[in-house]
């Protein structure tokens, strides 16, 4: 059981490691956001907030962003497996669908965590500082929960998709709104009711808020509430994913 999960995990890490273009390419977007938003909106934020540093606010958001996109992509990779035929090899093996789901979730989440950690170290270069080791530890917990939740979500979506045609739809109507309305870039205050409502049902909102609370000391809902929400959601999405995988036909 452990070995099966391990080999599924290892395969994904090998893919990740061997595709240097993807590794570097997926760092480009968060870096771009961090620099353009950080320096572009920085002065405005400082003036509006009465002296606070925008980079402190933005850094956890950008780390979450890197994790969100990598995790979703890793989950959706199952569609490629399906198209290239490799999914069948895994599905006819005498292993439980839960093992497949767990192995793939851990593989995708590990990759997303690595990307998140790289971005986190880049924020250091841009002047972001984490106050203590304890807050880094707590931050890592939030980062892994965000990674697990969104890999699980990607897998659950992928199990229902036959090919990549629906990809744009998912990006533009699910992932981008999740990102923009999570409070990663701007504070979720004084918003119109509709936007406010969406931001409150956005799972990433609680991940970003928790991470920001942990590593930058700013939280709207309180770290433990965030932890409860994103933790519960991670378990839920993995359970749903395992259920969908059990019905998967190649």
């Amino acid at each position, binding site marked *: 059981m452990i*070995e099966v999960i391990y*080999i*599924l995990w290892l395969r994904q890490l*090998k893919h990740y490691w*061997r595709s240097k273009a993807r590794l570097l390419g997926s760092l480009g977007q968060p870096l771009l956001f961090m620099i353009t938003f950080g320096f572009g909106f920085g002065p405005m934020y400082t003036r509006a907030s009465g002296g606070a540093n925008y980079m402190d606010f933005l850094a956890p958001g950008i780390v979450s962003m890197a994790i969100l996109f990598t995790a979703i992509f890793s989950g959706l990779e199952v569609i490629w497996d399906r198209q290239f035929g490799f999914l*069948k*090899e*895994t599905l*006819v093996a*005498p292993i439980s669908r839960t093992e497949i789901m767990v192995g793939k979730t851990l593989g995708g989440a590990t990759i997303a965590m690595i990307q998140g950690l790289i971005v986190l170290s880049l924020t250091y270069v841009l002047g972001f500082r984490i106050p203590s080791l304890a807050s880094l530890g707590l931050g890592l917990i939030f980062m892994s929960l965000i990674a697990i939740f969104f890999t699980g979500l990607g897998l659950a979506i992928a199990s229902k998709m036959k090919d990549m045609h629906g990809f744009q739809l998912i990006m533009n109507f699910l992932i981008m709104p999740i990102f923009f309305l999570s409070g990663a870039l701007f504070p979720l205050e004084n918003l119109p009711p509709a936007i406010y409502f969406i931001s409150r049902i956005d799972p990433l909102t609680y991940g970003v808020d928790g991470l920001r609370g942990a590593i930058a000391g700013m939280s709207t809902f309180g770290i433990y509430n965030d932890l409860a929400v994103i933790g519960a959601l991670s378990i839920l999405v993995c359970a749903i994913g395992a259920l969908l995988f059990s019905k998967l036909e190649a």
Partner: protein
Amino acid sequence: MQNILSVKSLTKKFDDFTAVKDISFDVETGSIFAFLGPNGAGKSTTIKMLTTVLKPTSGEISINGFNVLKDQDRARASFGIVFQDHSLDEELTAYENMVYHAVVYKVPKKERAERIQKALEIVGLWDRREDYVKKFSGGMKRRLEIARALVHYPKILFLDEPTVGLDPQTRNSIWTHIKNLNEERKMTIFLTTHYMEEAEAIADQIAIIDHGNIIESGTVEEIRTRTETESLEEAFLKLTGRGIRDENNETANKMRMIRGMGRRNRH
């Protein structure tokens, strides 16, 4: 046990198109069984059901004594399969593909290296084990898939058009390997192919499926006698007609269903 594979009243419906209609057959342990039929006759759908990829609408399948629907994992451990289309991970090396397979099929750790080496040697790919699969030719990929299917010592090996698109040399070598596996390891072989002369040369038993029904079965000799023809190819054409069929895939299934309805309406 006499029959390694036993199929009873197997049916598969897609919406209101029936791809496989209430078919029953047995495959004797240690034999080579050829499952033939034109494109879209229901071959691949049947193989998918036999190998747990697709759930039957109704009917029963037993492999190596295990019910494929109820005792899925033990049934899965009993067979090996080479799919019609590629199923290798091209971003991994040949050896890594083999290890992946050995682990998910729970081959004991200490036997793994030896079994993988033997399987790769059988298909002549041991020297290329460290190469990425994406660098392999079509024939090499096919041979690797056959080697991979052998690692967990299956009792029955399913081969869905294993020689399609390969040159005569490679086809020849693949059939030699398959024949050897059957003779030396007493492995049952279940194969589909469009090359009638290949089926004629290798198969002990043949079943011909068309429009989801098994329309003929027996040895090559019996089929030739019953259809009063000289070769399996002639018998096949006599039984299934000379009209050209659509390719078989999931969209084609639906297309056929729609066209089939049109055809019925015109009559």
